Structures are given as structure tokens and as C-alpha cells.
């Protein structure tokens, strides 16, 4: 009871904050916006830790609780309650959301200090936190979908935060529409679930799934595939990934919170949440893994050529979520969640550090106009280095443990697992390469030509402390779960993941995989250092090798072009054609034709009525003949 009440409060706090800030009459004081914006989320984190320890004090099998506020609707036997489910999985997500969230919101207070619409920013951030919490706390698929859509809305609002910029507006719309496509998949999945189980409650669906759905049954596969449509859209997996890079139009803290740490990992969360169903759907699970593997490679390859510091990070996010999807698809749910957690740390760190740089350079985001920042922004440089090492999987930073665990366990998970692990190792090399390319181009080498005007300034404490905290977490976070040591995350999640596949990599495989991934990463870092460490000359020298591939990469494997020409433009043409032809000719045409027919008849009668008596008499006689004929015929 206590924990669900606390969960409701955690959920309600940011909502209250959002409402308060947006409905505040007039322009509220900036301090007020700040206090409300940060306070609700931070308080949420504190309460969440209470929930966490409460759950921890229970025996693992009792670590869940549900509570309904009211019966939202009951239609034809389909009950839907406005209810929360508190279990290890949701609490873990809550901790990430409120923990990382409050750091990032705190960071924003300084980052956004110059902004005109201060309170709108915090209102929308709070709304996002509320939506995300709703997503993870929902006790049924319906409110999952609601939260799912609300985070999409929050993401839309925050991507389009600078709404006077047409590119931001377009990016926001793109993100929203693609997410609606995902929502559609999710909703269809919910229909199928409702039809099959007569309920949308997690508890009931998951409890009865093994009996109602045979393993590998068509329904199970369909449910999972449809769910995954939603996951792919939200987590930017191929082919629904194109919105995420564009989403970098939003303010950097937004990118850190929504498009790196929390929202985009919702897809992973959902697959893990529905592990019971995915367990029954081997093909769908394989599809998830394959999508993850392909995405991680494609995204990593694109990241290599990006010139915008945030877009590098964005593609790296897509790539990293690919790792999580590989894990989730292979049934390595706790590994996926572990990587999710670590990714939240180091990716938030990377984004916030990038934000520090951008802030220091008054909004400059292009790597071309950076360089040699190490001496000017020492703190940021170290923070960024930690983040890069973490994401590249260099021990003992956090990314090493989580990525390594995914790869090594995947090796043991059948042939597909091996393929995915190999892809993961290649991806690891690419990751290390593009991350250090970014690092060296921004911080290494000489300063950019002409220097920096105004001089880059170090940020204040509100930005520095969150970065510092995240740097620490990204450094040591991996020790939560070390090979052959304490598997804290796995143990914690065990009650929520009953179908945890018992894949256990042998020691040899584990060592070999680690060795492979670390060594390729190290080599990649070396190459990056050689290419980018010394300034632009060498880079420019090699810029034209592999021009064709480079072009494809710069065009992001042509996904956007394909969508534009295959889906969007035909849709426009169809709409225009409908307006041009179907509207006037078909729908109006019937009426016009009928009216024209009547009018023609009227004009004909007008002519016949020529005023001559003989005509009238003749008509009389003719009419008599007709009537006579009818009388005779109809008798």
C-alpha cells in the first residue's frame, strides 16, 4: 500500500509541476519555475528510493504491488483501470527516470537560463517525466499506450521547443508522426491481446499467456511483432529510426533526457516487460534481435561521418539501443536492462558534456568549428573522455561490463546469437572509432582557426555537478554486475522476468569475447587518434577515399529519401488527385449530372409547351391512347 501510494505521488508530482507551470497566470518568477521544475522530479527520486528500499526489504516473490485509482472504463467485459504496477522492473525504470531526470533538469536550469520561455521548458520537461513514469508504472497495456503516446507528445513539444525554427518544427512533426505509426502498432497489439485474453492487464495477460497461447503460435508472434512496431518507432530501430537524429533540434538537455537516457529506451523496456509473450514468440524475438543487430551497425556507420556533435551522439544512441534490442531479442532481458541503465549514465553524460561545450561556444554544434578545446574546457574534456571510454567498452568503465555481458552471453545463445555478437563486436569497433573521432576533433589537436570569440567559458555549478555525478556513475556503474561476481541487476529483476533464459556463457567464451571487443575498440581508438588527433590536415587528406560509401553514409543510407519518394510524396499526390478529380467529378459529379438531367428535361418540356392549342389537344389524345393502353395491359 505504501509503495503504490508513493508511486502515485511520484507520478503525480511532475504532472502537478507541469500543470502549475503551464497554468500559472502571467509570467512566473524564474526561481519558481526552477524550483518546481527540479523539485518535483528530485522529490520523485527521493520517494522512488524509498520504494526501492521497501521492495528490497521484501522477499523477491513479494516485490510487486498494484493499485487502481478508479475504474477508467468497462466496455463489454473489457475492464481498464487507471492503475499502477510497482515491481522491480518499473522501479528500476523509475530510478533512472527520476534520478537521471532530476540531474538533467537541474542542469537545464543553467543551460536554459538565457531562454525566453523558461517556464514552458520546465513545464514540458515535467510533463515528459510524468509521461515516462506513466509509461513504466502502467499496470495494463492501455495506460502503457497512453504513457507511450504522452512521451511522444512531450518529445514532440521539446524537439519543437524552438518553434520559430522551421527545421525544429519539421523535426518535431517527423518524430511525432513516426511515433504515431509505432502507437498504431502498439494499439493493434493491444486489440489482439484484448481479443485473445479479454483483458489488458499485465498480470492477467502474462499469467494466462502460456496456457492461452501455444509457444510459437501465430497469435503470439503477431502480438509481439505488433508490439515491436511500437518499440521500433520509439527506440529508433530500423526502419523507423529516421526521426531520432532530426530530434537533435531540441535543446541539449532534452536530447540527454528524452533522446538518450529514458524515452528512446522505452522500446527495450516494453520488450522486457512483455518477456513472457516474447518468450512464446521465437520468430518475433529473432526479428527483434536481427533488427537490433542491423540497426547497431547501420547507425554506427552513419555516426562515423557526422559533423554535428549532437548528431554523432544521436546515431550512437540508435546504435546502442540496437545492442539492447539484440539482448532483448535473444532473451537476455536483464542484460538488456543492465545496458539500458549503463547507457542512461554514459549517454546522459555525453550529451550533457556536449551541452557544456555547446553552451561554452554559444550554441556552436559543428565539429568543424571545434578543436583543441581540451585546454579551454578541461572539466568537459575529462567528462567527455570518461563518456567515450564508457561507451567504447573500455574496462573498467561502465559500458564495458554491460556491453561485454551482452556480447558474451549472445555467443552462447545459438547461431543467431553468434551472428549478433559478431555484429556487436564490429559495432564496438565502429563505436570506439566515431566516439573518439568526435573527442579528438573537439578536444584534441590545435584550436580552430581564428580562435574562439568570445572565449569559451566554463559553466556554473548547476551544470557541472550533474556532469560530475554522471561521470562518476559512468565510471563505476558497471560494477553493479560483474562477471562471476554479484549480479545485482539480474538478481533485482529476477522476480519480474520469470522467463529469464538460462543462457550462461562459458568462461572461455566470455574471456574471448571481452578480449575481442576490447582489442578492436582499442585499435579503433588508435586509428581515430592517428586520423584526428593531430588536427585537420590528415583528416582532409583522406576525406575523399571511399567517396561513394561516404556519400551513402552522409545520406544516412537513403532512408529519408526512400520514405519521401515511396510514401510521403505519393500520399500528397493522392490527396491532390482526390481534390482535383474525385471531389469535383465523382462526389459532385453525381449531383451535377442529376441536376443537369432534370434541367435538360425541364428545357425540353419548355420547348414542347409552344402555346399551340393543337399541341395541347394532341397531347390529350396521345395521353388518352397511353391510358387506354395501360388499362388494357394492366387489366
Amino acid at each position, binding site marked *: 500500500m505504501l509503495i503504490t501510494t508513493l508511486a502515485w505521488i511520484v507520478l503525480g508530482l511532475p504532472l502537478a509541476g507541469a500543470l502549475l507551470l503551464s497554468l500559472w497566470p502571467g509570467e512566473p518568477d524564474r526561481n519558481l519555475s526552477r524550483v518546481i521544475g527540479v523539485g518535483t522530479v528530485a522529490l520523485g527520486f527521493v520517494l522512488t528510493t524509498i520504494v526501492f528500499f521497501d521492495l528490497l526489504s521484501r522477499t523477491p516473490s513479494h516485490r510487486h504491488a498494484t493499485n487502481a485509482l478508479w475504474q477508467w472504463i468497462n466496455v463489454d467485459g473489457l475492464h481498464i483501470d487507471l492503475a499502477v504496477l510497482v515491481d522491480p522492473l518499473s522501479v528500476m525504470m523509475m530510478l533512472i527516470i527520476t534520478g537521471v531526470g532530476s540531474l538533467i533538469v537541474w542542469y537545464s536550469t543553467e543551460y536554459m537560463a538565457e531562454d525566453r520561455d523558461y517556464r514552458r521548458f520546465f513545464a514540458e520537461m515535467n510533463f515528459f517525466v510524468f509521461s515516462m513514469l506513466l509509461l513504466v508504472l502502467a499496470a495494463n497495456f492501455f495506460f502503457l499506450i497512453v504513457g507511450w503516446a504522452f512521451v511522444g507528445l512531450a518529445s514532440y513539444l521539446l524537439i519543437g521547443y524552438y518553434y520559430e525554427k522551421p527545421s525544429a518544427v519539421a523535426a518535431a512533426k517527423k518524430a511525432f508522426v513516426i511515433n504515431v505509426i509505432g502507437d498504431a502498432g502498439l494499439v*493493434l497489439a493491444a486489440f489482439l491481446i484484448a481479443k485473445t485474453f479479454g483483458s489488458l492487464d499485465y498480470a492477467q495477460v502474462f499469467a494466462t499467456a502460456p496456457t492461452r497461447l501455444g509457444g510459437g503460435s501465430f497469435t503470439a508472434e503477431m502480438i509481439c511483432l505488433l508490439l515491436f512496431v511500437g518499440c521500433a518507432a520509439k527506440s529508433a530501430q530500423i526502419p523507423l529510426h529516421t526521426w531520432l537524429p532530426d530530434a537533435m533540434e531540441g535543446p541539449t538537455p532534452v536530447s540527454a533526457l528524452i533522446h538518450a537516457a529514458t524515452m528512446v529506451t522505452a522500446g527495450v523496456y516494453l520488450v522486457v516487460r512483455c518477456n513472457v509473450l516474447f518468450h512464446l514468440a521465437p520468430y518475433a524475438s529473432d526479428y527483434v534481435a536481427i533488427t537490433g543487430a542491423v540497426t547497431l551497425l547501420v547507425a554506427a556507420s552513419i555516426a562515423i561521418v557526422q559533423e554535428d556533435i549532437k548528431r554523432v551522439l544521436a546515431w550512437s544512441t540508435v546504435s546502442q539501443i540496437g545492442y539492447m534490442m539484440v539482448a532483448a531479442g535473444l532473451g537476455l532481458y536483464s542484460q538488456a536492462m543492465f545496458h539500458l541503465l549503463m547507457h542512461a549514465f554514459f549517454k546522459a553524460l555525453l550529451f550533457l558534456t556536449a551541452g557544456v561545450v555547446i553552451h561554452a561556444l554559444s550554441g556552436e554544434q559543428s565539429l568543424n568549428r571545434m578543436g583543441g578545446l581540451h585546454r579551454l574546457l578541461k572539466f568537459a574534456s575529462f567528462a567527455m573522455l570518461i563518456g567515450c571510454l564508457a561507451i567504447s567498452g573500455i574496462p573498467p568503465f561502465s559500458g564495458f561490463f554491460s556491453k561485454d555481458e551482452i556480447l558474451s552471453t549472445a555467443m552462447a545463445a545459438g547461431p543467431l546469437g553468434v551472428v549478433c555478437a559478431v555484429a556487436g563486436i564490429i559495432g564496438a569497433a565502429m563505436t570506439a572509432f566515431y566516439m573518439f573521432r568526435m573527442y579528438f576533433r573537439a578536444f584534441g589537436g590545435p584550436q580552430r582557426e581564428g580562435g574562439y570569440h568570445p572565449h569559451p567559458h566554463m559553466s556554473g555549478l548547476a551544470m557541472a555537478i550533474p556532469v560530475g555525478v554522471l561521470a562518476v556513475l559512468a565510471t563505476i556503474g558497471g560494477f553493479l554486475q560483474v562477471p562471476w561476481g554479484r549480479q545485482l541487476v539480474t538478481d533485482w529483476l529476477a522476480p519480474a522476468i520469470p522467463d529469464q533464459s538460462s543462457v550462461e556463457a562459458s568462461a572461455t567464451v566470455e574471456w574471448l569475447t571481452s578480449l575481442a571487443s576490447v582489442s578492436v575498440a582499442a585499435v579503433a581508438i588508435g586509428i581515430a587518434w592517428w586520423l584526428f588527433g593531430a588536427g585537420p590536415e590528415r583528416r582532409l587528406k583522406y576525406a575523399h577515399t571511399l567517396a561513394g560509401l561516404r556519400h551513402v553514409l552522409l545520406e544516412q543510407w537513403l532512408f529519408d529519401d526512400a520514405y519521401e519518394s515511396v510514401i510521403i510524396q505519393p500520399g500528397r499526390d493522392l490527396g491532390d488527385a482526390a481534390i482535383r478529380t474525385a471531389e469535383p467529378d465523382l462526389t459532385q459529379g453525381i449531383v451535377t449530372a442529376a441536376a443537369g438531367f432534370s434541367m435538360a428535361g425541364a428545357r425540353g418540356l419548355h420547348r414542347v409547351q409552344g402555346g399551340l392549342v393543337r399541341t395541347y389537344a394532341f397531347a390529350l389524345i396521345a395521353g388518352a391512347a397511353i391510358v387506354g393502353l395501360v388499362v388494357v395491359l394492366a387489366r
Partner: protein
Amino acid sequence: MPWLTIIIVIPLLAALAMFIVPEGDVGTARLVAALGAGLTLVMSVLMLANFHRDFPGPQFVDHAGWATQVGLDWIVWVDGISIWLIMLTTGLFAIAVAYLCFRTPDRPRAFLALIMLAEMGLLGLFSSGNLVLFYVFWELMLVPFYFMIGMWGGAGRKLASIKFVIYTMVGSLLMLVSIVATAVIAHGITGVYTFDIVALRNVDYTRPESIWLLAGFLLAFVIKLPLWPFHGWLPDAYRESPIVVVALLAAVVSKAGVYGLLRIGLPLFPRGMAYFQYPIILLALVSIVYGSLVAWRQPTMRMLVGYSSLAHLGFIALGIAAIDPQAAQGAVLQMVNHGVVVVAAFAIVGIIATRTGKEDIDDIGGLAARAPWLSGIFLVVTMASLAIPGSNSFAGEFFILSGTFRHDWWAAAIAMIGVVYASVYMLRLYQSSMNGPARGGDPRRVELRVRDVVVLVPLIAVMLFIALWPQVLAGASSASVNAAVAPAQVAVGRPPSEIRSVVLPNPLPATVSSASGVTGGASQ
């Protein structure tokens, strides 16, 4: 207390009172209209408070003879379906009157009188317990709209008004033939010559009879809705009418068609509905996709919202044609939702258009910068209109499609195209007017004023309420919805486990409801 009769008569009295109001006395005219609409709203709320939630049959039955020997009678009642349409009508007309009171049109007396007459027509329609009375009100509401379009419309108003009437009448006159034929054929079967809807529900028509009788009704319904390709009257009427009229047409009048399907189509002609099920589903799907595509490419704000309405009504029609209690329940929910949302959308379009003097989407932009409140409310309305999960519209659409999915998953899947496109065109509307570089005059002038707030805030409040707790609506209508759908479910051969209501309900006895009249229905 003859609740419904009073509710129907109040607007009529208000309309008649306009004759006494001296010409040019705008204040009194406004007062009369406001009193009329307000009192009607209050009465309907009080009626709702006395409503028996779980009773599936007619309540608040008022009965008086008119020309009883030929089956013409004054029988009005509500059930769980129509009570919400009554509420929708009284609420939205009160809003419309509020809107008009602040923006007095040319010749206000006449306009307000016509608005009141239209309200009477719709209220009568939604409470008719007799087919002929249904027809009477069906046509009666047409007349004020005809005049409102013709007298206060834009440049092409003459053509638009006559097209609107003739198009609608093609369907409705054939409906009259069907109404007459229904009574005649029922007479042949039961020996009773009656137009009473309750009595006619128990008539066992043969399949061809059911099909042909329904065909006459159906044309009228799909034209009124409208469904593609019967929307030929819509573009002209929407383009030329005053925005209030467009809003009411889209929000309330269109519901008459849906209501007809629910009240007459499903319970009276289940076999016919079984026959026409897939044609209607098909038309609904085409309407959804077609309306979305065309809405997307419209140049003006009002036409965009207008065509979006075509798509949304396609969803509602789909919910009924699915012949599933869940889908039908969703349709009932969505009728209310769509009415509320579309009125809000048109109100915002009207505000923007009057303040900037522009209606073309490309001429307006960047209003959010100086009109944050408008922008915020518009966002809420946009989201409700594109049925984002968590909005009131989503509650309706979810159950429409979920119910449809149970038997015709493909139809729900195709309808999803419309869901996606809704976000495309609604965001086009929202973003191009609110975001981007400022265009179309001083955005500060566009910001909401008190007069706008009184119109929009009640609508937003209703949207939020339904979004948070749709069970209030669903709970009070489910019994009636189940009863309405049950015969058609039998006709299409659904398994008994899915049929929620076996017995067709009789009217609530006068002693139980607070209605004064006797029941007009036949016994089982």
C-alpha cells in the same frame, strides 16, 4: 414532469420570442437566446441527474396524441444512447450561443432564432420514439440550417444552401417511403399499424424486407453523416457557411446519421444491417482514408477540419457497422467526443480567422510566440482531434477499433492509416499556424480573450473529464448499446457468448422514471 417535452419546447419558445424582440435590440435578442440555450442545458443536466444508468430501455417517456389514427404521435424518450446526444446538443448549442453573443452576426434576431430552431429540431430528433416524429425532426432541423447557410454564408451561399438541402432530401424522402413501408409491412406481420420504434423492434421482417426497408433509411443516414462518396454537399456547405454553422453541422447534425443507424438500423432491421455491414464498413474505411488525405492537402483551416470530420465520422460509422457491443460503445463515446472536439477546433479556426482576417493555412504562422494561451489550448484540441492515446477521442476510437478488430481485424488495420494521417494533417494545421516564423499580422491580437475562454474552457473541461473517466458515459450507455446491437449480432451469427443483451427492453414504467407519460411501446 415531462422533461423531454419541456427541453424540446424551450428553444422553440426562445425562437418564437425573437419575433417579439424589437428590431435592432441586439441585447434582448442575445438575452433571449442565452436564456433559451441556458435553460435547455440546465434542464437536460437535471434530467441526466435523474437518469437511471443501468436501465437499457426508454426513460422519461412523454406521450401525447397528435394524429393517432394514422400513427402520428408525440412520443419522446431517451435511453442510454440518446441522453448523451441530448447532452451534446444542449451543451454545444449553449456554447454556440455564447460564441454568437460575443460576435453578434448580421441580423442577430433571425440568426439566433434559427439557431434555437435548429436546437429544437436536433433535440426532437434525438428523443423521437416514433419513426414519423423522427422524420419530422430530421427535416425540421434542415430548414434552419438552410436559412443560416443561405443568409449568412459566403459568396457561394445560394448554391451551397440549395445543394445542402437537396442532397440531404434525396436520402430523407426515400427514408419517408421506407418509414411508411415499415409500418405497412409490420402491419401485415403483427396486425398493428404503428410507427412506434419500441413496438417495431419486435417485428420479424423477412430478410429481403429488412434489406429493402433499411436501404431507404441507409441512404439518408450516410448522406447526413456523410460517408464517402455521399459527402457532395459537404465541401460547399462547409466552405460557405458561417463558422458556427459549420461547427454545428459537423458536431451535432452529422450525429443524426449515426444516431439513425444506432436507433433504427441496428435494432429494427438487424438482417438488413447484416446485409449492409460490409458495404458500410467499406465506405467508412474509404471515408477515413480519403477524408484524411484530402484534409491533409486542403488550403484553408476550416476545410481541413471539415474533411478531418469526414474521416472521424468514418470511424464512428465503422464502430456501428462492426456490429459489436464494444465497437458500438466506442462509437457512442466518439459521437460525444467528436462533437466536443470539432466544435473546439472550429472555434479556434474561427478565432484565428476573424482576428487575422485570413483562413489560408499558408498565410498564417508563428502565432504561438505572442499567443501562448491560444497555442496551448489549440495544442490540446489538436491532440484530442488526432486522438492521441490518453485523450477523450482515443477512448472512443480505441473501443471502436478494438471491437472491429475482434471480427474484422483488417478493417481496424486499414483504419489505422487514418489514425496516422490524422497526426499528419492535424499537425500541419497546428504547426503552420502556431509555429514557424510569424506571418499573418500581429499575433498579439490573436491571443485568447475572455469571450474565447468562455467558449473553449467548457469544451476543454469536458474533453479532460471524458479522457479521465469515460466510464461515466460508458456505464450509463452500455445497457442501451448492448440492447441496440444484440439483434444485429444474432443476425450476423455471432456466438451467444458475445451477445450481451438478449431481451429487448421495454420503456421504463412511469412510476420508476419521473416521466409523466405512459409508455408507447409494445410488450414482449
